[in-house]
């Protein structure tokens, strides 16, 4: 076991993959010479050369499309899109090619494409660089959507993604890159089918993922001081959702709050809430609550941006109301 | 009928309206209503059963005379002697 940062964990996974499998290559804006917009691929081009670590033009649609083409032809590309905000330019490739080619070809073609993207706000990058749109990806059948929230998952989930025959989209909350955590460097592919209970509790189920896990655990600690024991579930996989873990928890706690940095309307939180209502109606002692971002484009000024993002205090308040 | 036989009948009919009472511990000279839990319905039913079994009809005006076991037996003995 050792300690490393989230970005180092991603890098270690890519390094191992590049080493072991000649079909694997990394492609994206500034991933090569610059070492990656978030320094995730720092040092890789020096180690593996420009054929395996490829800088692309500023054209998401082009290089995501190229990644689809490469995958169709037997390669195992890792495409890095700088942020989910820019991935909107590639949505046609994602939806109409990557997600659907297997179905449209009757299973003759698979698209074993891995796309990594930074997501989320909190770094004062303004309205075009700060949103969380992984919920839109989780809406699409035919793809897997992952959200590693821990250092171990950053490595393990990427390795697992590379073993999939169908497209996998990995969302890395940008504030997690410098986060340090324990990791077994030798660990291979992680389980990407199940959510994880990060904190056990009996009074309320807090469901979250990615960049919101930290705040949720913080809220749980505060609630524990008030005698409310919260169970924190890290979804880990956003599509398909591991509702079994969530429902089992709600059956014990009878209360649920979903914390999601996306906007509330039509969010992934809304999907989880609907499923809890549909499948655990009789277990609920309180309506399912959601703590999401305010419904405005992300502000630039720090105090304003902080006001729009879910914070631990809001999570605490949402739970306190249930037990007032 | 002698008084003992009358007393036996009275206790038996009384226990029918007050089945949970212990007839063995009834004090004969103490007001019955103070010893066993019977209400006016029970009392009336008791008197009806006395009438049915001993053929002694008790006038309502005589009710105040029938408060203890002793005076019930005495009253009935009087009525039975008169009727032969």
């Amino acid at each position, binding site marked *: 076991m050792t300690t490393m940062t989230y970005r180092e964990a991603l890098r270690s996974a890519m390094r191992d993959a590049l080493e072991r499998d000649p079909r694997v290559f990394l492609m994206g804006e500034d991933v090569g010479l610059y070492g990656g917009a978030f320094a995730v691929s720092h040092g890789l081009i020096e180690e593996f050369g420009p054929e395996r670590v490829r800088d692309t033009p500023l054209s998401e649609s082009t290089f995501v499309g190229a990644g689809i083409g490469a995958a169709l032809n037997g390669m195992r590309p890792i495409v890095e899109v700088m942020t989910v905000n820019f991935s909107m330019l590639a949505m046609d490739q994602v939806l109409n090619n990557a997600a659907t080619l297997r179905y449209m070809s009757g299973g003759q073609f698979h698209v074993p494409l891995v796309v990594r993207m930074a997501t989320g706000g909190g770094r004062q990058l303004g309205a075009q660089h700060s949103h969380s749109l992984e919920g839109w990806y989780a809406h699409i059948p035919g793809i897997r959507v992952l959200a590693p929230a821990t250092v171990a998952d950053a490595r393990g989930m990427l390795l697992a993604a590379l073993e999939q025959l169908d497209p996998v989209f990995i969302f890395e909350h940008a504030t997690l890159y410098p986060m340090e955590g324990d990791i077994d460097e030798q660990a291979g592919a992680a389980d990407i089918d199940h959510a994880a209970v990060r904190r056990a509790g009996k009074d309320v189920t807090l469901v979250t993922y990615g960049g919101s896990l930290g705040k949720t655990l913080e809220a749980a600690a505060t609630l524990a001081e008030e005698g409310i024991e919260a169970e924190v579930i890290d979804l880990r996989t956003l599509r398909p959702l591991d509702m079994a873990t969530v429902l089992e928890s709600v059956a014990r706690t*009878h209360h649920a709050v979903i914390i999601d940095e996306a906007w509330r309307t039509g969010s992934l939180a809304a999907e989880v809430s609907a499923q809890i209502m549909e499948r655990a*109606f*009789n*277990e*609920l*002692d*309180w309506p399912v609550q959601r703590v999401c971002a305010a419904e405005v484009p992300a502000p630039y000024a720090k105090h304003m941006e902080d006001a729009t993002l879910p914070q631990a205090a809001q999570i605490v308040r949402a739970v306190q109301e249930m037990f007032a | 009928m002698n008084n003992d036989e009358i007393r036996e009948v009275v206790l038996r009919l009384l226990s029918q309206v*007050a*089945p*949970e009472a212990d007839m063995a511990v009834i004090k004969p000279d103490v007001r019955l*209503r103070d010893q066993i*839990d019977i*209400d*006016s*319905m029970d009392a*009336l*039913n008791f*008197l*009806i059963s006395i*009438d*049915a079994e001993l053929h002694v*009809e*008790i*006038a*309502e*005006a005589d009710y105040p005379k029938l408060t203890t076991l002793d005076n019930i037996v005495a009253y009935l003995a009087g009525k039975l002697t008169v009727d032969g």
Partner: protein
Amino acid sequence: MTAGTLVAWRKEPGDAVRRGDIIAEVESDKADVEVEIFMNGVLEKILVEPGEKVPVGTPLATIRLDPGEVEPAPAPAASAAMPAAVPPPMPRAHAGAPAEGRAPISPAARQLAAELHVDLATVTGTGPDGRIQRRDVLAAAEAQRAVAAPTPEAAPRDKQTRMRQAIAAAMMRSAREIPHFHLASTIDMGAATAWLAEENARRKIADRLLSGVLLIKATALALREVPELNASWIDERVMLHESVHTGIAISLPGGGLVAPALHDADRQSLGDLMTNLRDLVMRARAGSLRSSEMSDPTMTITSLGEEGAEAVYGLIYPPQVALAGFGRLHARPMSIGGQVVSRPVVVATLAADHRVADGHRGSRFLAAVEHLLQTPEKL
């Protein structure tokens, strides 16, 4: 009540059954109940054996109806069975009651109440809008346990204990939910007692009337003059009843109380009332009341009897909205025509639900009872 045990079958497969026949006995928390049949036909197949305990609503037998018989609408489970805690609301005539105004109940609370055998009608909700939540159901279950006789057994099988629990729950609910007010009136019973003595002197002992039936008849007739007291409070509104079915509070040997209905008390002659009252008391004490008698009272009368206190200020049996009480008949000095004379009197009391009636209407009721008792020959 959520389950009952079939005690015995009074009919066998192949027997003809007629409306009103008793076909089985079922044991519930309060008493053994006789199950009446409401149609003519032949008992076909018995589905539940003696000794079996089944949930409320379980079919007990199949009946082959006589030609021309219309299958009756299934009775709601609540009115077909003895209530565990409280007499259930008046049946079918009010089936269209709207849901608004009823306290919301969380799904988890509803489920928990079913598991713990808590009557949700006895639970106060502490959530928003008075919503009943799990903690409220748990509190009610605790309270139920706290009221029970402290035995080490998990569930008291003893019928007495269960009855006490049921009474306690009903009384707690009454005290908690019904805004009571009480009125009292001292009624001159001189005319009534004189008439009764004369009447009873004429009658054979088996036909004699107790003064109690005069009180019952007068009460039932008085309800015709103040009909809002002959009602039930259900779903935040008052439901008036067409018929007057007076519940008669009957104490049971060994403790406990039931208040089954004397149906149509306002329309029965005193002789019939006496016969029916006698029969009701006997069956109440034998534990063989009919389910309809338990669920039908529209207003209850409690009389303390000859050994009782002067007046009773009682608690209304929900969902009824009134309780008439009579203390013991006793002598009091009264001023009549300027003279002080000793008169036999009884103190009549009315406990009423302030949501439904006020002092003025309650006074009208007691005045009517008093008035009626001055002309007992007309009762």
